[in-house]
């Protein structure tokens, strides 16, 4: 029953190539498979940039005091893409950066899997650090992605970043 009502939110409607194209053009997309970091990095190559900062968010084996076995991310893809485009656009206005790209993965993830990847390039180092952190924080606050953690006793819980 649970699988039925959430099934459509565990997969993207687009193809993987389409998701990467959208990420390259707009700076953000959802993906429902392994994030290919090298593919994303290549889109950021720029001889004028001395600084590259990236963040990888990985599924860790604990949250607060509980042992986590796995977790599942669910996404509202169309809103996520629209909101992601706005976030990357705003990042480029706020910080002296050349380009930025981010991908959030949805679906069932194991411990160690990368759930989110954010990369930024700029001429100088501080704007890349600041923008990467701001993009990550803003994605966590605004992108419509939800997660359910599964524990060793098979119980699960909806989590929220705020509210």
């Amino acid at each position: 029953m649970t699988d039925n009502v959430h099934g459509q939110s565990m997969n993207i409607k687009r193809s993987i190539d389409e998701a990467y194209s959208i990420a390259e053009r707009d700076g953000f997309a959802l993906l429902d498979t392994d994030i290919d970091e090298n593919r994303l990095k290549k889109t950021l190559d720029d001889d004028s940039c001395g600084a590259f900062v990236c963040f990888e968010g990985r599924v860790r084996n604990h949250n607060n005091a509980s042992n986590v076995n796995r977790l599942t991310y669910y996404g509202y893809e169309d809103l996520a893409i629209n909101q992601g485009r706005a976030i990357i656009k705003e990042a480029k206005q706020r910080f002296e950066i050349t380009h930025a790209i981010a991908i959030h993965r949805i679906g069932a993830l194991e411990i160690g899997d990368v759930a989110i990847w954010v990369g930024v390039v700029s001429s100088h180092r501080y704007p890349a650090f600041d923008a990467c952190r701001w993009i990550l924080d803003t994605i966590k606050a605004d992108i419509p992605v939800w997660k359910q953690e599964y524990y060793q006793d098979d119980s699960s819980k909806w989590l929220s970043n705020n509210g």
Partner: protein
Amino acid sequence: MSTVVENHTDATMNITVLYFASLADEANCHDEKVEVKQTTSLTELYEQLSQKHRFSRPQSELRVAVNDYFAKWTDEIHDGDSVVFITPVAGG
């Protein structure tokens, strides 16, 4: 004149509602089509659906999206719109 007003009041619009996360659990569906009065506000729409599905979260804890963009609760909706109530997100 009075006829026109009557028509307006009786007229309805069809809205598609998508559910995610705990709202999908409580509604027990991913999406549904609802027919509501022409002038229904987003707040009234949530109130109606909340009564129907017994949603546990008050509107104050939610955001709302119309046609795949975040919207304000005071934004008008129109026939054919797609509406999503957004519980607190948990990406990253």
